[in-house]
């Protein structure tokens, strides 16, 4: 569908070139009556995942506010890079939006040397939509019960404790690496693939001791007593797990991080369109139903005060993770 639409746009572009004057006039009009055709949100992951979940939750309200149909296109592959590449090359007319996240935007550019997209240059951020803090979980039989005990335990056994992660370049792995550095711990990284499920299963089965997961994938197991939570990576405690102290509280202020999701548009999209989209997204994220549905799954519904604020947020986030990546030397070429 994207392919046909791109082809159709290429054709439309050729016709428009024949009359440059008309083009200028019509594009000015196109901006003022934006949107006048369906909008596509490219989700770079498969249906059923966290990104798809966020996109589908905000789809109906956003569509209502913009007065246009919104189509969600799942273009998964290569850790989200396939969809990101496609979105970056789409026409910057406000009809193709990209649901970026911490992995695609802040981490992948520093891990995949072959990645052609430079997210910070090729996209203009519009607004963050969802924020999922990290949760440090461990097998209930693992002796330490909080971060302080964990640090003592690992320091007494350098190189003996294993931690799992949903993937080499996953934010959860980097969260652990960043904490490990801050606390000066020597642990062995055991990467998994295919989402948080298989890794969580092995922590539950006691094959690996601990890991960071997003709150959304860990909260039920913690509440059910199959896993214990040692800390959350937020500044303040989270409402769903009021008994779990933050990493900051326990003396590790650098361990503040989250998995975020946000809307970006291809660079070159006219400012009035960005502003219109931003306003609609902020309004969407205020919706009580959406906030409640997200909260049920441990996700916090948020929005950025302005596109510029979101840009600053992403830049800081990217700088943080690229620093961790260079330090530990994860590199794929």
């Amino acid at each position, binding site marked *: 569908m994207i392919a046909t639409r791109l082809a159709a746009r290429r054709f439309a572009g050729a016709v428009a070139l024949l009359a440059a004057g008309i083009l200028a006039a019509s594009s000015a009009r196109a901006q003022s009556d934006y949107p006048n055709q369906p909008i596509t949100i490219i989700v770079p992951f498969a249906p059923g995942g966290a990104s798809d979940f966020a996109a589908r939750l905000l789809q109906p309200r956003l569509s209502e506010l913009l007065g246009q149909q919104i189509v969600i296109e799942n273009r998964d592959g*290569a850790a989200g890079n396939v969809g990101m590449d496609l979105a970056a090359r789409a026409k910057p007319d406000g009809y193709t939006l990209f649901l970026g996240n911490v992995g695609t935007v802040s981490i992948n550019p520093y891990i995949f040397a072959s990645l052609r997209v430079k997210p910070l240059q090729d996209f203009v951020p519009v607004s963050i939509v969802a924020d999922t803090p990290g949760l440090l979980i461990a097998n209930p039989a693992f002796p330490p019960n909080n971060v302080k005990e964990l640090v003592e335990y690992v320091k007494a056994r350098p190189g003996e404790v294993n931690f799992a992660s949903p993937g080499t370049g996953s934010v959860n792995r980097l969260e652990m690496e960043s904490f490990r550095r801050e606390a000066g711990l020597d642990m062995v990284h055991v990467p998994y693939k295919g989402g948080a499920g298989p890794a969580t299963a092995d922590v539950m089965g006691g094959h690996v001791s601990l890991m960071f997961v997003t709150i959304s994938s860990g909260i039920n197991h913690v509440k059910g007593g199959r896993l214990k939570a040692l800390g959350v990576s937020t500044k303040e405690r989270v409402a769903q797990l009021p008994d779990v102290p933050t990493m900051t509280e326990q003396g590790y202020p650098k361990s503040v991080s989250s998995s975020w999701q946000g809307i970006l548009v291809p660079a070159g999209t006219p400012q009035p369109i960005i502003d219109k989209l931003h306003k609609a997204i902020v309004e969407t994220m205020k919706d009580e139903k959406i906030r409640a549905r997200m909260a049920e799954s441990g996700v916090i519904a948020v929005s950025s005060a302005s596109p510029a604020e979101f840009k600053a947020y992403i830049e800081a986030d990217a700088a943080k993770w690229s620093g961790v990546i260079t330090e530990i030397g994860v590199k794929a070429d």
Partner: protein
Amino acid sequence: MELFNDLLLGFSIALTPANLAYGFLGVLLGTIIGVLPGLGPVATISILLPVTFALPASAALIMLAGIYYGAQYGGSTTAILVNLPGESSSVVTAIDGYQMARKGRAGLALATAALSSFFAGTIATVIIAVAAPALAEVALDFGPADYFSLMLFGLIAAVILAHGSVVKAVGMILVGILLGTMGIDANTGLERFTFGIPAFGDGIDFAVIAMGMFGIGETISNLERGGESRTFLRGVRGLWPSWTDIKSIIRPAIRGTALGSCLGLLPGGGPVLASFSTYALEKKLAKDPTRFGKGAIEGVAGPEAANNAAAQTAFIPMLTLGLPSSAVMALMIGALMMQGLSPGPQLMTQRPDLFWGLIASMWLGNLMLVVLNLPLIGIWVKLLSVPYRMLYPAIMLFCCIGVYSIHNNALDVTMAALFGGFGFICHRLRCEPAPLLLGFILGPMIEETLRRALLISHGDPMVFVQRPISLSFLILAFCLLVVLVAPMIRVTRQKAFEEGAE
């Protein structure tokens, strides 16, 4: 008694007209897309998942489960009729099912597949209802080392699939494993054998290789032998299984169900591992193993029962612990989350209607599948009486659509063409494609679990013999190897003696 009440609640949910209708719709859609080569259960559910978001939770889950069974079963249909295993677990079905079809027993093969699937589905549903929580604990005990040993055992069993040269079969398994290493390495993030093409980052899709080697390669070999002037089917006999047929399928179906129910609990390749270990078992148990690969009915009944049972028990870790054991189950969890539900132990207590409704609908889904497919068998078999010169261009077109639709990527079609050429060459060189596909499926899991087990043990290989589960599989694997190699040595020695005597 409590179980009875629970099941009663389940059936009261699943048997509402609306839920029955959604279940039937799911089975129907699943079967249609499943028959299209290339699109297996994962792709089918991904495509249709958004449709279910608008439905109530029980209807959505029932419909998705229906799509899953339908797609799984549809894959077997094409495997039997035209030697196109639409998804990984029907690779084994293609071996003897297709040979049965070539001998005019397509109807019987399809009926066998449907009936043994239904049998397995029924038993597996009972297992889930009775023992789901206990079995989930067993699945958690499986660590990476245990899983590695199981996979190793599985690969050695894969050699039994071959009916030709053992050396060539092992070689094809290794080629498959090598193909499986393409893509981003999960442990280091390094891109292996991707030739700088981003689309290769996730490796090659199973369907691309299957469509290429089986679909395109097989068609080219048929044409090369001048097969286009033939009609595919000569003299249909035995649409329905006779009493002797039923007697010969019942034991394999029971054994397949048992193996499948166990292996389905494990993450990853449950149904695949189940279907071909059952095949290997049946071939070893058979009085005349040479019939296998030439249309043995046990070679359809056992694996079909096994993969269906495994597909069913794969729900257990998802339903009881909220842990997905396969891509399909991850999609199911996504669907639950969209409904505002979180899968896990609390699902059973908080929403018993949903939990038991789903279990009841599993059985109903299997029933619908039989009801839908038994009458269809006649139509499928009629389709085979179309002259081959008209049938095979249609198969080629379906292959192309199927392969293209996986990722809407033309590169996949190009790759399928290349594998078609390779498949034809292999065919002429008497190398069989099934071991390659199994190596391709199991290879990445073997590498992953081997590396993970050694990471966890900090490099100590003793981990594979210290863990009882792992040790048992290694001993089994060793025994199997002895069984495999012994006759070869005997033959060589016999030859040597004969030559010495001359």
